């Protein structure tokens, strides 16, 4: 036998044919298994339960991380938590704002007064100008009779 053209030599052979009785044997066993093992639905109770567990775990992680975040923020601002509430339909005056912020407004009011005084000294109001004009008018016309 010449092995140089092995493909030609091998092509003279074939693999043994399948037995005719094998089909019945194979299919009978397979059919029995098919009917015994019912098709599993895609969404089983187990699968849904696992999804629920996963969602609950995520929720717990989310809540815990939010609590930790709040706790750390409290630590950073010296143990004080500021919460500002807004009253709908009611104007927030300075008193209300101070109350919401939880700060003492006395210092702020003092500062505001000082600023107001300073403002009055530098820039005369319209009433000051009116008084001044009346004085000048009286001087010229000898007063209003």
């Amino acid at each position: 036998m010449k092995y140089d053209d092995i493909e030609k030599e091998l092509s003279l052979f074939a693999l043994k044919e399948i037995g005719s009785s094998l089909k019945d044997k194979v299919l009978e066993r397979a059919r029995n298994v098919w009917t015994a093992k019912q098709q599993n639905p895609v969404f089983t109770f187990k699968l849904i339960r696992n999804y629920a567990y996963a969602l609950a775990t995520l929720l717990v992680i989310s809540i815990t991380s939010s609590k930790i975040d709040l706790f750390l923020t409290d630590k950073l601002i010296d143990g004080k938590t500021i919460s500002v509430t807004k009253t709908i339909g009611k104007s927030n005056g300075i008193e209300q704002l101070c109350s919401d912020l939880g700060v003492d407004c006395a210092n702020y009011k003092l500062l505001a007064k000082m600023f107001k005084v300073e403002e009055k000294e530098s820039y005369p109001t319209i009433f000051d100008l009116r008084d001044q004009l009346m004085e000048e008018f009286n001087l010229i016309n000898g007063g209003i009779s």
Partner: protein
Amino acid sequence: MEKEIESKIKQLIRQNDPFALEIIYNELGEKLYKYILSILWSDIKAEEVMQNLFVAVAEKRNHIARARNLTGYIFAMARNQAMDFLRTEPKNGKNIEDYKNVLVLKDASTNSFDSEELEKITKAILSLPSKQKEVISMKIFQDMTFENIARALNISINTAASRYRYGIEKLKSKLKEFENEI
């Protein structure tokens, strides 16, 4: 296997109709048997693995219905079943006599081969790595094209062709080696 037949099989599986098994057997049975035979090189063992394979098909029909390449998927299952069988088989006690009846002459009247030569060829084929052995077997003994081999084994055509080429080279050198031994 044609696309329409694959679709029909998938549809039958979704309808939980075991007729799908018969269609798979009619379409792929012969090829699967020869493929398993080329791995195990024993007709008795191949028949046993064929039964195991179809049981596995019935059990894993949901996965099969979702497979993109149905033929490739079933061939991969056949390969796994055959490999599992080889793993459980005892290593010792293998005899060339067990493998002799796997190759048959296509035309016994015009060709004559003495049993010694047939034994040499069988031995040489058995010495090949399994991946080269399966491609050579599909190409030569089952007259499959590289395209069909690639589809069945879920590999590229180039991979199938190169496995074949290397396998043939090894086969040649092995047979020459046997000739020199005499």
